[in-house]
């Protein structure tokens, strides 16, 4: 066994690190040494506790006690009181915000664990290639319950009552979608799982399929029973080879156990699932385009109605749901609509999975109850902005969403609040931007994506987005005017109103929200011809500071276009008309003599 009887875990997350966790470790070590306890007490640095607002955190094991906002001078109290006398240091415990009672154990600290895993319940816990592990974790119990104890109508009512809304981004009620497909009479119906995850920075669905494929298969069978379908299809992009591999294994295992196929669990219900591969076109995440792609046609959207629930795959009633929507279904069936609807906000129930990326310390996959604020996501779970930089914005909903600024940080995240704030929930990609990101370049970046991915069927999307992209390019190059900003806005609104499908209707969102939230930055680009974030190369000028330059010639030698002149040991000069703004000189200079204006 361990020679240590106590472990002191000190948070070494970036944000705690900034607030003196080094000094805390140092003082703790001194105290322990002074008391002659080096052989029995060990100090360990850990990763982020996700509780940065109350950092630095010190946790004592095996006592399972958490101390918050610890200062270096508290080391003595922790060692003398807690480690030696076994008494908790009450003043360092977290105080319950409601009762003001001190709490020490993390499992009694609900507020501390801001994440709740419903969709990701098995991810990172079970072996996705072993159906037995899924079954041991109550897998396929919901299917069993549905087939033996519930009518299709009852299942639909349960899903409707749960308040679950489509996690692909549009937020349509899952129960109503099922009901529509259920009501349409037909000899054959289809259940389709949309696994065509295409937002840049999104990997929620991939993680679910790679970590817990059976949860999706089970939910599809439940949906099949409810709407009266015996065939399921999963449309997955071919660039997800591991997810495909694990899905294939899962489908085969389910078939071997008779959980897919004919006469499931002896109830007479037949259901089977096949895979269909997408080539990675963004528009194929739109359900009508997805269906056409599965039929072997061009991946182009068509006008709704008719909705797929009426006429979908092969002209039959089809229910299309996203991976995450499906993965929550078994939990809703087993734990009940009432339980699910007790989580979240008034109109958005349950939890949402987000892929947290960009300039944030804890890049990761998270799941939080609806209603969690952006601040909690970014500064608690996400551990704050990288390198101590300033938060500037967060792009939610991928290229179809908008960029929210500082003033939105306390907005509780749900479908309606995000729309009201000028963005969308989308599939759940969150890209965090800091002070170094230029909002004109960012809008241009997202537009570049939609221009590339537009199928070209309708003019607003094909031509409009292209023109928007050109305008943004001109602004970045300092060739824009104030009038162009109005033009940007008007054109965006027209595209939004007139495009055929979701792709075009949402593609101007980044432009509109960024214009709205960062208008001064756009104005600076067109009036002063300046890029405040220092990103737009055409608007920058590299200048050598006379005082710092020692004339070492390093910059002149590294310049690829010979834009720098000057004699040895004399101040050098950059010729702005030749300079291509590559930044090589600035990187090379050891005397901090080159700066950007």
């Amino acid at each position, binding site marked *: 066994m361990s*020679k240590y009887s106590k472990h002191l875990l000190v948070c070494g997350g970036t944000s705690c690190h900034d607030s003196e966790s080094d000094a805390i470790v140092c003082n703790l070590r001194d105290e322990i040494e002074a008391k002659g306890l080096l052989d029995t007490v060990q100090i360990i640095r850990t990763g982020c506790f996700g509780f940065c607002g109350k950092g630095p955190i010190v946790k004592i094991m095996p006592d399972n006690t958490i101390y918050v906002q610890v200062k270096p001078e508290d080391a003595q109290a922790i060692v003398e009181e807690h480690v030696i006398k076994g008494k908790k240091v009450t003043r360092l415990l977290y105080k319950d915000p409601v009762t003001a009672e001190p709490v020490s154990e993390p499992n009694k600290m609900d507020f501390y664990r801001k*994440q709740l*895993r419903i969709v*990701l319940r098995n991810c990172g*816990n079970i072996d996705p290639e072993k159906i037995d592990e899924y079954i041991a974790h109550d897998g396929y119990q919901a299917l069993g319950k549905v087939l033996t104890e519930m009518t299709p109508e009852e299942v639909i009512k349960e899903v409707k009552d749960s308040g679950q809304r489509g996690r692909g981004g549009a937020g349509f009620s899952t129960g109503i979608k099922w009901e529509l497909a259920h009501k349409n009479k037909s000899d054959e119906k289809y259940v389709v799982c949309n696994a065509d995850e295409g937002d840049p920075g999104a990997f929620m669905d991939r993680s679910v399929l790679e970590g817990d494929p059976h949860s999706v298969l089970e939910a599809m069978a439940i949906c099949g029973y409810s709407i009266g379908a015996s065939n399921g299809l999963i449309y997955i992009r071919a660039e997800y080879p591991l997810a495909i591999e694990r899905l294939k294994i899962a489908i085969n295992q389910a078939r071997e156990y008779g959980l897919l196929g004919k006469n499931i669990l002896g109830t007479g219900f037949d259901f089977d699932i096949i895979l269909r591969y997408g080539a990675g076109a963004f528009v194929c995440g739109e359900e009508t385009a997805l269906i056409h792609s599965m039929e072997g046609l061009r991946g182009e959207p068509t006008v709704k109605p008719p909705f797929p629930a009426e006429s979908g795959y092969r002209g039959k009633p089809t229910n299309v749901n996203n991976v995450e929507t499906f993965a929550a279904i078994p939990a809703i069936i087993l734990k009940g609509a009432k339980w699910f609807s007790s989580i979240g906000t008034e109109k958005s129930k349950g939890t949402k999975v987000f892929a947290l990326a960009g300039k944030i310390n804890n890049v990761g996959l998270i799941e939080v109850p609806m209603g969690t604020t952006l601040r909690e996501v970014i500064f608690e779970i996400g551990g704050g902005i990288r390198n101590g930089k300033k938060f500037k914005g967060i792009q939610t909903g991928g290229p179809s969403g908008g960029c929210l600024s500082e003033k939105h940080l306390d907005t509780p995240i749900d479908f309606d609040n995000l729309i009201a704030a000028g963005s969308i929930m989308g599939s759940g990609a969150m890209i965090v931007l800091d002070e170094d990101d230029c909002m004109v370049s960012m809008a241009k970046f997202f537009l570049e994506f939609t221009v590339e991915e537009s199928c070209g069927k309708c003019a607003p999307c094909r031509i409009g987005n292209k023109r928007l992209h050109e305008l943004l390019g001109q602004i970045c190059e300092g060739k824009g005017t104030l009038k162009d900003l109005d033009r940007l806005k008007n054109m965006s609104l027209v595209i939004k109103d007139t495009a055929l499908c979701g792709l075009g209707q949402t593609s101007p969102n980044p432009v509109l929200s960024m214009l709205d939230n960062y208008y001064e930055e756009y104005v600076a680009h067109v009036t002063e011809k300046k890029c405040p974030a220092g990103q737009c190369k055409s608007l920058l000028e590299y200048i050598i500071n006379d005082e710092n330059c020692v004339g070492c010639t390093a910059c002149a030698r590294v310049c690829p276009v010979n834009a720098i002149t000057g004699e040895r040991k004399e101040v050098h000069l950059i010729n702005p008309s030749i300079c291509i703004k590559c930044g090589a000189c600035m990187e090379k200079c050891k005397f901090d003599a080159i700066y950007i204006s």
Partner: protein
Amino acid sequence: MSKITSFADLKKKRETLTSGLDIKTKTSHPEKSVLVKVAMATCGIASGAKAVMEFFSEQLERRNVAAVVSQTGCMGYCYAEPTIEVRLPGQDPVVFGFVDLKRADQIIEKYIKTGELVDGIIPVNYQSIDLKE
């Protein structure tokens, strides 16, 4: 594999599995074995999880530690891949991040063999639901 032909059958299957799940039935002394889970989603594998998993399987056997090494999906800590979870018999699981082969070796020698913690611990910051009513 034999078919599961009724809901009762499925429930029975779950019971037999839960009584043996945590130990994955590979060893004769289940209550004494160490359980190592390696996060093997695309992102984990891309940052070297496969080599880490092979290392644990090979070295734990070579160093005579009764252990079961298994793969699992994404644990959510992308910033700290590869990540693993180690459960010592009778203890709460501990998650370690940034596990390269050097740290893997430390984890075996220090944490698994003596219970002494090593750097790179990731505090679990979520609650997970239990499907049982």
